[in-house]
């Protein structure tokens, strides 16, 4: 039997979810009403979309993320060349409205196929993906708020109680350490309420292999942590979840990546976002910390390495131009990568035994993270 306190907590949580849903619906409704009115008044409806061109993406040092500048463009149904994309966007808003109202979720691919039922033509999925980003830009809300999720899934493991909000599972709870393969971060998990946790830290790790190793080594228990497998560049829903864990559960986030320039950038995107999602503010964990594998670790731990490819080197030079890599470890490690021109995998620690990474490297890094 649940106590009254718990009951009211649950009530609060579902209220919160309801409120979020209500907000989204209200916003869509107000956009719709505006367009309805224009049409009714014999005017061609139009709306403003923040420009997502490179020239309008700037790094905001205060927010510690990429944001869109003030440039915006008007998309008008009067302009025959914009009429099609205007209609596509309207349809998407309409479709998102239904998804949200009915608490159904859809994938990017689903959206593309569903359009066909409404005589809305998308040439390919990338066109419909683009319109989805347009909707995010217009509403400043991530697509997950409209119940649209990517196909790729990353996973989570650790002592975290959640409570589903999706239809049919409302109020149902789950502990995320119940399944040793981890839980896939899908729509139900992304939208679930985070109830409580004994963990004190979130470890985001780039590779599925190491994630499994960490589960086996009981890193969650040993270091009171929640382990998240980002599967390379973290999907947006994963980044959303990371942000929520940080903000709602007050957990610090550390990122563990391969010892190469891409790894460094995976950490950076979690921390401060991507140019691609510069129109969104809810995806970044500015306080997230990258703890390794650093270029300096390659030397320090004498890790086995492989030479960097030309594209690795080019990527280093590209990142040097990024304002976020102007100082701190970001700059320092990049410089070392460039000097070494060699890279190392997380698995490189196996040289010193399978458990070396969790027994030696991780504790040292966790300690270090506190000072970062």
């Amino acid at each position, binding site marked *: 039997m649940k106590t009254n306190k718990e009951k009211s907590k649950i009530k609060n949580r579902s209220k919160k979810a309801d409120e979020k849903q209500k907000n989204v619906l209200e916003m869509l409704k107000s956009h719709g009403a505006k367009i309805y009115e224009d049409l*009714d008044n014999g005017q061609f409806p139009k709306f403003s979309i923040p420009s997502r061109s490179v020239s309008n993406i700037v790094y905001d040092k205060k927010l510690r993320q990429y944001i869109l500048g003030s440039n915006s463009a008007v998309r008008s149904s009067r302009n025959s060349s914009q009429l099609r994309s205007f*209609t596509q966007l*309207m349809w998407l808003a309409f479709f998102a409205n239904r998804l949200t109202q009915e608490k159904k979720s859809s994938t990017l691919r689903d959206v593309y196929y569903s359009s066909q039922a409404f005589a809305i033509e998308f040439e390919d999925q*990338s066109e419909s993906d683009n319109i989805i980003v347009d909707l995010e830009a217009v509403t400043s809300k991530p697509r997950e708020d409209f119940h649209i999720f990517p196909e790729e899934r990353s996973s989570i493991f650790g002592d975290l109680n959640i409570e589903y909000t999706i239809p049919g599972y409302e109020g149902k709870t789950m502990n995320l350490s119940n399944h040793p393969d981890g839980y896939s971060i899908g729509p139900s998990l992304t939208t679930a309420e985070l109830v409580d946790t004994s963990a004190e830290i979130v470890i985001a790790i780039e590779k599925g292999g190491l994630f499994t190793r960490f589960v086996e080594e009981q890193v969650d228990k040993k270091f009171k942590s929640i382990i998240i497998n980002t599967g390379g560049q973290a999907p947006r829903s994963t980044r959303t979840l990371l942000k929520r864990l940080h903000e709602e559960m007050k957990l610090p986030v550390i990122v563990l990546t391969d010892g190469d320039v891409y790894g460094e950038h995976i950490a950076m995107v979690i921390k401060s976002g*991507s140019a691609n999602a510069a129109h969104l503010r809810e995806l970044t964990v500015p306080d997230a910390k990258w703890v390794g594998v650093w270029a300096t670790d390659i030397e320090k731990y004498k890790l086995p390495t492989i030479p960097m490819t030309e594209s690795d080197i080019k990527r280093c030079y590209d990142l040097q131009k990024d304002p976020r890599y102007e100082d701190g470890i970001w700059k320092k490690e990049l410089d070392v990568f460039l000097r070494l021109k060699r890279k190392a995998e997380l698995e490189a620690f196996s040289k010193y035994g399978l458990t070396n990474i969790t027994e030696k490297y991780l504790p040292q890094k966790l300690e270090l993270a506190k000072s970062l």
Partner: protein
Amino acid sequence: MSLIKEKFNQISPSEFFYSNRDLAGFSNPTRSLYTAVREFVENALDACDQKGILPDVHLIIKAVDPEKSDPKHYILTVKDNGPGIDPEHIPLAFGTVLYGSKFGLKQARGMFGLGATMAILYGQITTNKPVTVKSSVDGQTQDEFELLLDIQKNKPVIVKHNTKEVSKKGLSVSICLEGDYSKAGNKIRDYVYETSLITPYASITFDDPKGEKFSHPRFVKDIPPPPTIIRPHPHGIDVERIRRMIVESQFEIPNIDDAMIEKVRKDLGLSVKNLSFTVIMEKAKKKWKTLSRQVRVVIALMSFLKMDFEKLNKIKIEDIDMPNKKLFYWDFGDSQSKSVDMDSESQYFKQLTNTVQGEPMTTFLTKRFQRIGPTTASKFAEFAGFKPEKRMGTMTNQELVNLSDSLQKFEDFLAPDPSCLAPLGEEPLEKGIKKFFNPDFAAVVQRPASAYSGFPFIVEMGIAYGGDIKTGGPHVYRYANRIPLLYDEGSDVVLKVVNDTDWGRYKIKGDPPFIIVSHICSTRIPYKTAGKENVADRPEIERELRLGLQYLSRKLAAYMSKRGQADMAKKRANLYAKYIPLIATFATELAGKKKEPNFKKILEIENVDESKKTVVEENEVENK
């Protein structure tokens, strides 16, 4: 070493054409059948044109034995309602090569009337059958001839000749020849079709050997004015031509013999008695204006010699030295040469000067060229560095060359007189194009007359788009002196000009349904070959074609852009009609309304003015 002695023979014209018949388009049964049709039809049309008769031409081709396979013998008959040919000329006209009435200097379809004889000759050598000619000049009696050619002698052989009563004027020519209609049929049908386009005042019917009838009735009631013979234009004239003209302008000193003296006496109206020098001079003065040039010259000579007719009989004029004003003569009585001084102030001096040295340049130019007045003539003389009174007979070779060069370079001559040309005219051409192609757009232009090498020419062009025209254009219909040119189009100057045109610039793209009609009229078309199927790229002609085509292309471009705008507007309207209702549906549900908004109003706004849009164009979105 053996010595081979070369033999020189003279061959008859018909012998020459017999061995070189491919020159005139009789190289094989297919081409020959087509060429024969052309020659007879063109002769019929020419004959009618020149007499101002609206032509009715009937072409019949019949297989001698329809069961046989091609190539086989065909009987080709062409009948017209023209003036006919006098029976006395028929044997020579149809039985001799290089005999005809077309050697003048004006525009006609054929130049020498040679082709028809060639067709007859070809018929004879392939089937050994005579040509049948029926002609009625007065519309009452008709002469019917059957003729063979004696090729070696270039002479007609009359096989049969009779006359009978008829009720219609005109000519009918019928030959039997080896041909290949299965291959030539397309070209012949095209030829008849295209001829009727450029000859809208003619009715042409064609009975083909398969029993089909192609009828092209006239749709224009007036014949364009017939051409006239004109003087040459100064542009492009050559030295040889000027030399000949100067000779024409000079006169021989008449031989003063008994006959000449008798003529002078008669023209002055003198009786036998009064023959004194003074009386003769007085009489001449009175009657000067009525005297002929020859008589005037004799009088002028007498005035300086101061002789009466009796004395005149005893001398012979030897030389007239105009610069030194001396007149030399041989006196038979004294048997010696004598001279008298001439008074340059005398009016008779001028008369002699004219005779000996030819006309002054200004007179020469105004009298012997078209469209040169006294002012232009003096301006030209100054331009060319001659004195206007320079006598043409005193020109040195070098001066002649200078004159000829200057005539070509001087730019103030008026354009050649086109009265020797018979363009169809813009109106009939446009009517023809509209009737034949039922196009959405048509434009025609007749360029002002121009000249190449002294031969005037006129370019007429038409352009049409859409309607019944099939795609894959431009389809080019080429004409020269109202003859459709169907072969060898690849190397033709018209094709060159058309192919040089960047049609994209005129908003014509893809596989356009459009045609170009080009008609070159000239007293001489510069054909590349004797087959008369393609026109050489003379720069003057190319330029006129280009200007004509550019003018028409601009008109077409204007039409295309209007059409494009209309298409765009329609396309836009369709877009609105498709998408606005969708937007309305989605907005209705989003806004939570029951009834759809009244969006019909904006759909009714026709031609949404793109220029009025206030929106900023959306930036291209880049994704990384």
